[in-house]
């Protein structure tokens, strides 16, 4: 794979992230289900990590984290490292423990969503923002409603992977 192919490949992945971001930031917040909106960006990071492996997953996780910090309000920097680390771990898991398939992706995505909301709950507890029950009532529906959207994100990135993923020439 030449440098041009590599550039082409990651450009396509980046373009695939655009509709996910627009859905996440612009469309779905207008259609909350019982007041809950899903998180789609972690699903995108999980999909690419599972499909492409650990190191590409680290790079894509870094990029998604950077975009999340820059384009969404309330960032504090931790998502860049967090999603890069998650990409590395999910990539390794899919390569050596799970399979590079939808069930493997679903487990990774669920783990990542739980980890993200777990950290938010922990931060909330440390800052005494609310009691555990109140925060779990936010976190649990968010994780579940996000997972409902996981097949759609998986299909999108699997289509990209089939076209330009792995060591295929673009």
């Amino acid at each position, binding site marked *: *794979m*030449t*440098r041009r192919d*590599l550039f082409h490949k990651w450009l396509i992945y980046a373009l695939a992230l655009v509709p996910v971001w*627009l859905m*996440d*930031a*612009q*469309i*779905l*917040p*207008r259609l*909350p289900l*019982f*007041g*809950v*909106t899903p*998180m789609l960006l972690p699903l995108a990071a999980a999909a690419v990590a599972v499909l492409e*492996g*650990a*190191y*590409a997953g*680290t*790079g894509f*996780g*870094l990029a998604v*984290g*950077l*975009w999340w*910090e*820059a*384009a*969404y*309000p*309330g*960032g*504090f*920097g*931790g*998502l*860049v*490292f*967090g*999603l*890069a*680390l998650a990409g*590395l771990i999910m990539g390794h898991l899919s390569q050596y423990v799970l399979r590079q398939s939808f069930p493997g992706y679903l487990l990774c995505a669920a783990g990542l969503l739980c980890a993200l909301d777990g950290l*938010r709950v922990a931060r*909330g507890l440390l800052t005494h*923002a*609310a009691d555990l029950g*109140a*925060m779990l*009532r*936010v976190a649990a*529906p*968010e994780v579940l409603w996000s997972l409902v959207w996981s097949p759609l994100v998986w299909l999108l990135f699997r289509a990209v992977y089939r076209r330009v993923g792995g060591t295929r020439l673009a």
Partner: protein
Amino acid sequence: MKDFLRKNGILLLVIALLLSILIGVTSSLLGGNADPLSNVVSTVTAPIRSGVSAVANWAEGVYNYVFRYGQIQEELSDLRAQVAELEDQVRQGQEAIRENEQLRQLLDLQERRRDFVFESARVTERSTVNWESTLTLDKGSSADVEAGDCVITETGVLVGVVSKVGYNWSTVSTVIDTGIEMGGIVSRTYSAGILEGSFDLMSQGKLRLSYLPEGAQLVSGDEVLTSGRGDVYPSGLVVGQVEGVFTDPSGQSRYAVVVPEAQLDNLIEVFVIKDFAIVE
């Protein structure tokens, strides 16, 4: 370059860690101002977000027209009735103002006057996570909007407070956001409390009026205003109506659940109060 990603995963992780620290430090140093990266990204993506928002608003309008025509007609009838009622109230209000003025003069009270400096702005984005309730506006530091400015509707109802400012955009924490904390007062009983968002109530689109005085006799429908205590935020802005009064799980204090007057999901244009003065 060919195997760059494969061989340098750990390097990427270190880069990610450094970027995280850089963003975290920059954010904390800049306070309410957006860090340069967020500023650039949001400035560049502002037209895209505005465009998508405009298309989504149009689609919502078409949907409402096609599928909710009957409901809209009913609302129109209700609104006409309300307008007639309000016109009557305005007439009564004018009389009350005149009478009030006379009473002020009689009591030799110093008249207070607040000068609001407004900046109109359009809502380009709504909250995207369940942990906070925010709106993004299309005006920022280029229009002299600052963190801490109050945002209201055209009818003077409080929407929220500007929490972050970029060059041509700003983020508003709405009244139901857990980061909001400001003085509130019930207009009927003058019972003061602290208006604050809560995770329990945010998904229902409501907020709390906490630390109510023991003897406060509130009823459903009581109007809640900002108290302006501390002169950080203007006083007298309408926040919402009391839905019910409850006792804290600790049993030590009571709080009221407040339904905001602002329709946070349907806001299109809002007004930022850039400056206000209390002349005593």
